[in-house]
């Protein structure tokens, strides 16, 4: 390990880290935004569930590198455009989260839904104020998996020339320089663990009722 290499290339490393962050987080946000209505649909209608869940399963099965390569053909983008990575990872995130959202909404006790309706909540408000918040824990679990796996998959994008920490891997490989590869691995893991911890905290903040009974007054 050549430690001196790290401060010498601080700007490069930080730049790649920033790129990596955006390339992993953007798909998660996009994926979440798309998955919530799709999951709600799958929960509402058996027919939708029968189509959406297996379709999601198939999409998730396709390996990432394959999706990075096939998407340019479908989307008409250039093969090295980072958009391919963002779209591919968004597809994965949607595929993963649709099932999460559907099951999470299905797990909301029907008594609670009935009570909310009885209180006068209209369906829209009821979804936003009652059903969705109760679905948050399971959703956060799905988000954690999606985020950690996206962070790892973005580095595969380096094989098609997309930026991010993966560049440290390909460059370290070309120059026979394990130090660079190790830095990339460590940063990638730190990023993943940090994002995971952040999501756990956000999940707890968003569900104060789950902490009631642990000794704190409501």
């Amino acid at each position: 390990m050549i430690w001196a290499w790290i401060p010498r290339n601080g700007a490069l490393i930080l730049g790649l880290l920033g790129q990596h962050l955006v390339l992993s987080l953007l798909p998660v946000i996009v994926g979440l935004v798309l998955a919530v209505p799709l999951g709600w649909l799958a929960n509402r209608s058996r027919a939708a569930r029968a189509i959406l869940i297996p379709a999601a399963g198939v999409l998730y099965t396709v390996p990432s590198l394959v999706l990075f390569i096939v998407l340019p053909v479908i989307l008409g983008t250039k093969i090295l455009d980072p958009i391919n990575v963002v779209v591919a990872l968004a597809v994965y995130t949607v595929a993963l989260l649709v099932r999460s959202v559907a099951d999470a909404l299905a797990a909301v006790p029907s008594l609670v839904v009935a009570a909310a309706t009885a209180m006068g909540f209209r369906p829209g408000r009821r979804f936003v104020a009652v059903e969705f918040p109760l679905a948050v824990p399971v959703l956060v679990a799905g988000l954690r998996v999606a985020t950690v796996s996206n962070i790892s998959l973005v580095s595969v994008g380096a094989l098609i020339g997309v930026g991010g920490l993966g560049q440290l891997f390909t460059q370290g490989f070309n120059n026979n320089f394990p130090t660079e590869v190790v830095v990339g691995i460590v940063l990638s893991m730190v990023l993943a663990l940090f994002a995971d911890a952040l999501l756990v905290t956000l999940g707890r903040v968003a569900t104060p009722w789950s902490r009631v009974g642990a000794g704190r007054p409501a």
Partner: protein
Amino acid sequence: MNLGAWFTDPANWTGPGGVPTRLLEHLYYSGLALVIGILIAVPIGAAVGHTGRGGFLVVGIANWLRSLPDLGLLILLVLLVGISLISVTVALLVLAIPPLLAGTYAGVANVDRSVVDAARGVGMRERDILLRVELPNALPLLLGGLRAAALQVIATTAIAAIASFGGLGRYLIDGQAYRDYTEMAAGAVLIAVLALVVEGVLAGVQRLVVSPGLRAVDTRIRPPAEPANDPTSPAPTDRSSHEMAGVNS
């Protein structure tokens, strides 16, 4: 870009660069890693799930291993160890073990306690309880973990082509090198089809092997009953529990 022409060209189906050879290479690397992974992860996961001790550690290690980037790990191993079966197998193992471990542990730990009690009540020994009661009941989650691991391994074997290994990934990497996008797309299709076929086969195995009594159980994901307080409760943080939901859908 003429995929049809590529697939109907007999030259692409014969010889060391042909589809059958590449497919067998791919299955060899993936299969080897999966078998070794099962031999390592299932006993550990089962033991920890059965005794209930060390669950936190197992889940923690599985999560930590899951955050390792596959490409980086493969490259590091090749740089340090060389181009040998060991580098690619270790890299694949590191990716296969977390889902297998988490799935086995979650499966065994989540077996209905009353069932285990009943087994103890009839006088079964601990080892018999594990083998004849807990493991069969744990099959849905265990096989879910196996499916997740299989997909991970197939996907990463494709990447191994950058380190000169064979397998279907060769079409992706070589095609990219001489800018033959048809070959790249053909490789992509082949790998996707392989992944889907393997997933289908394992789903079929799951249907065959899992006891009919278990299949009737509602396996949809529920919010964890005791979230933050119980560190040993396997929260559904891994893909295997999501896969489990696919058993009945």
